């Protein structure tokens, strides 16, 4: 299966691990991910904070590039995914907006490119049965909190990802990898997202509450699908400890990394050495002893 793969800007910096693990599992599963030539930033939160037309035209420019390739688009960053979906939704449902966007991008785009998150590709296009056939390792009952955050599930009119209050897509993948998906009430709570550098005080409060809930629910690690969630939950554990004395030591792993481990891909190839909180507890459970391989 061929896809136009939109890596998003974070793939070149803070989410290199997500990018590397996505490419590694795609290769292992026989999925062909091709980057659209000259793809550009989706604009993310700063764009919709600033101008609606700008925030829709930047993703639309990537979508028209994809349309010309003739494939569906696969995205692994939840923020880019959200902006692509919203651009499609607005362009399909608002003819005035479609006109303005098309003027800005200098093309005629109708909002019809299928945009899929990599979770949807694993779940719907590939199917869990096929995924399971390729597995070489099991998570051996590792207790996992699936954390979805905001951008995959909301607004549901545009993303159509899953149930916005109780999504189960990642939980189902986790279960099929042999993990135990725990009941996690904070799966769609916000981590503070784009306020990460501007209001760390708020981020610390919100991530503390999410980590606390995961720990209480018995999670041994948190699995995520968004670079911003990953960074906030992983990087801020030190700050939380400094402020409150609570030490979580909770690994925050991308779903693509977890899938890759069960496909027998080496941890380093999945960027697991780039996590701030060491995932050694997770690797030990999967009987991968090559933690030192970092």
């Amino acid at each position, binding site marked *: 299966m061929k896809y136009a793969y939109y890596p998003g800007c974070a793939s*070149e*910096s803070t989410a290199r691990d997500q990018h590397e693990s996505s490419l590694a599992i795609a290769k292992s599963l026989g999925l062909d991910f091709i980057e659209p030539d*000259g793809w*550009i930033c989706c604009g993310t939160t700063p764009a919709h*904070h600033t101008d609606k037309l*700008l925030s829709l*035209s930047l993703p639309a420019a990537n979508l028209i590039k994809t349309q010309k390739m003739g494939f569906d688009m696969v995205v692994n960053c939840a923020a880019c995914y959200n902006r692509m979906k919203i651009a499609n939704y607005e362009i399909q449902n608002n003819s005035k907006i479609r006109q303005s966007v098309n003027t800005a991008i200098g093309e005629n785009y109708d909002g019809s490119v299928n945009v899929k998150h990599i979770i949807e590709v694993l779940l719907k296009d590939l199917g869990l049965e096929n995924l399971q056939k390729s597995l070489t390792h099991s998570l051996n009952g590792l207790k996992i909190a699936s954390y979805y955050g*905001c951008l995959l599930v*909301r607004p549901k009119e545009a993303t159509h990802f899953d149930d916005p209050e109780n999504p189960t897509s990642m939980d189902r993948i986790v279960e099929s990898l042999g993990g135990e998906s725990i009941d996690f009430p904070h799966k769609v709570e916000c981590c*503070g997202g784009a306020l990460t550098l501007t209001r760390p005080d708020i981020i610390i409060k919100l991530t503390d509450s999410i980590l606390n809930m995961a720990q209480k629910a018995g999670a041994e690690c948190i699995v995520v699908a968004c670079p911003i969630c990953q960074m906030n939950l992983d990087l801020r554990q030190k700050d939380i400890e400094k402020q409150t004395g609570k030490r979580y030591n909770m690994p925050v792993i991308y779903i693509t990394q977890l899938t890759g481990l069960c496909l027998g891909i080496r941890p380093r190839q999945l960027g697991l050495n780039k996590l701030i909180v060491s995932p050694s507890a997770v690797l030990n459970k999967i009987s991968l002893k090559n933690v030192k391989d970092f």
Partner: protein
Amino acid sequence: MTLRIQKGNTANKISNIVHMLSEVDFNTCIQCKKCASGCPVSASEISDSISLPFEIIRRLQLGASTELLGTDIIWICTSCETCYARCPMGIDIASIMDALRILAVENNVHDKKGYVSFFNKAFLKTVKIFGRTYDVAFLTAYKISSISIKKDKDGKFSFLQDMDKLLDIYKKRKIALLPSFNADRGLVKQIFQIAGQRKKRYFDKMMP
């Protein structure tokens, strides 16, 4: 938060502009307050300088003027869209927040603590130049612009805030030292230019 609503012809009403920018009809709000109940920041950050989301909607209905732009909620809103997802009347409150932020910047009203508008400006500037995000450049631009506010609420220089985090991610090779050279930069410039001109025309007409 206590806000005085200005009345009469002299008041600079913003309800219409908010409605036009967001394309959201806020007149159907039934004040059930579900928006604030689910809001991740309303509960933890509530103070005298914060208007809760349903209050914002009510004030807009009453014909608020630019004083509404001074409430900090528009800058601590994380755009998580929980309010919209749970609103029984389907009011897209997150889009109203976007409209208020845009209007605030047009009126030169910035957030008191968080420098969100400076962050947005620095971020978009690097996208405009490089076609993709370039962390080193926008972080530097943001840090420099935040010097003008000098200190955060604890009296520390915000310039040094999170420098240790940058070091952490640098050690993990999670920050690119060079910008990307593969983006379609011409297309990005064109989009910024056309969107920028349209926005300028709009505000020249609405707020001469």
